[in-house]
């Protein structure tokens, strides 16, 4: 690829816009596509790609936060408690990224992509209804409620230690791969802690900015964040994600989600293949 800076920037901006739009419509996030897009299509070194992707994750989180927080579903205390785990994990992940070979990062990336694709098409029941109060969650003031047409729905999170540990893993993967790790967060908040779907999605969007900022500082010092690359990626993904959030309520996303999951799985296999061959 011997494009000029102008051509390269426009192509990356357009691809990022599409990645942000699809990521937000399918709930997978823009970060999971942007790294393969840059490495496989443009042969960008995976470290620059991860740096740019991480920046776009912070932008999406901050840009969408106002709309999410106004809806009144997010649980601030759940978010702030779990941020201790995700931010420490993110710092560890960023250090790990500078120490392990890029081929290994590509393989881990591929595995996480496969898992994300699988969870995005598998319908999951909401486990939050009818949970009795939990002692530890009560002490930590994590119980909450949100508005429904039938009045306020009260919920009681549980399994705090398991959720906390899984959130550390989510932070670690975020710092290692430059993604939002939405799939692992769903595992921690929806599955382990039994937090209602709407609460966990909005709360994790709120948390991801802080999580990504925790590894971004380290990436910056290590020279992973290139302004010329991060600029079109950040602006493109954020614009796409914000547009996606606007059309999401009226969109029929089931077919799109399946198609996107299949595409992601194919990309994941290519990442693993290239990683094993040491070609990334």
């Amino acid at each position, binding site marked *: 690829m011997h*494009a*000029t*800076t*102008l051509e*390269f*920037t426009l192509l990356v901006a357009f691809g990022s816009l599409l990645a942000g739009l699809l990521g937000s419509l399918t709930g997978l996030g823009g970060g999971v596509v942007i790294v393969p897009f*840059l490495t496989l299509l*443009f*042969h*960008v*070194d995976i*470290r*620059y790609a991860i740096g740019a992707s991480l*920046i776009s994750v*912070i*932008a999406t*989180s*901050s*840009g969408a*936060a*106002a709309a999410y*927080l106004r809806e*009144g579903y997010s649980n*601030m*205390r759940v978010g*702030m*408690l779990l*941020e*201790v785990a995700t*931010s*420490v994990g993110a*710092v560890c992940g*960023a250090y790990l990224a500078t120490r392990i070979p890029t081929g290994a990062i590509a393989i881990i990336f591929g595995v996480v992509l496969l898992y994300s694709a699988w969870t995005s098409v598998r319908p999951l029941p909401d486990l939050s209804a009818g949970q009795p109060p939990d002692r530890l969650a009560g002490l*930590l*003031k994590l119980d*909450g409620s949100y508005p429904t047409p039938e009045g306020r729905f009260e919920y009681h999170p549980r399994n705090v230690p398991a959720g906390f540990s899984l959130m550390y893993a989510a932070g670690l993967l975020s710092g290692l791969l430059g993604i939002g790790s939405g799939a692992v967060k769903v595992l921690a908040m929806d599955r382990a802690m039994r937090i209602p779907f709407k609460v966990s999605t909005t709360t994790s969007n709120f948390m991801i*900015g*802080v999580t*990504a*900022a*925790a590894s*971004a*500082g*380290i990436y*910056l*010092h*290590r*020279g*992973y*964040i*290139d*302004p*010329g*690359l*991060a*600029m*079109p990626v*950040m*602006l493109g993904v*954020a614009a796409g994600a914000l547009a996606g959030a606007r059309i999401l309520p009226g969109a029929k996303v089931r077919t799109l989600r399946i198609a996107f999951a299949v595409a992601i799985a194919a990309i994941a296999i290519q990442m693993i293949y290239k990683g094993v061959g040491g070609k990334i």
Partner: protein
Amino acid sequence: MRAEQRDRQFEILLGQLLRIGFLLSAAVVLAGGLLYLIQYRHQSPQYQMFRGEPTDIRYVADVLRYALGGHSRGLIQLGLLLLIATPIARISFSVIEFARQRDWLYVTTTVIVLAVLIYSLASS
């Protein structure tokens, strides 16, 4: 219920803070980006090989000096720093709010997160 309402209002405030930070940083990145495209339009970007960024855009103080000198790459990097600073500002506000509520448990958790963020940005 009163405590919950207070939390709700605070959440809306945080949402506005995050959006202002985002819009500000996006504006700076866009301005730097346009300048960058004018300055570098005929060159070919080289991202296939990882060299790491030059040291003048790796540290906060250097980025500031570089950006104020009218360098497009420095200006973009300044916008990115504003973006990274936005969640840090959000955590700082939370520390203050929890202290006002005398909720020492959450003062502790937010102070830990703030320390991790500052460590990351100030490290090396």
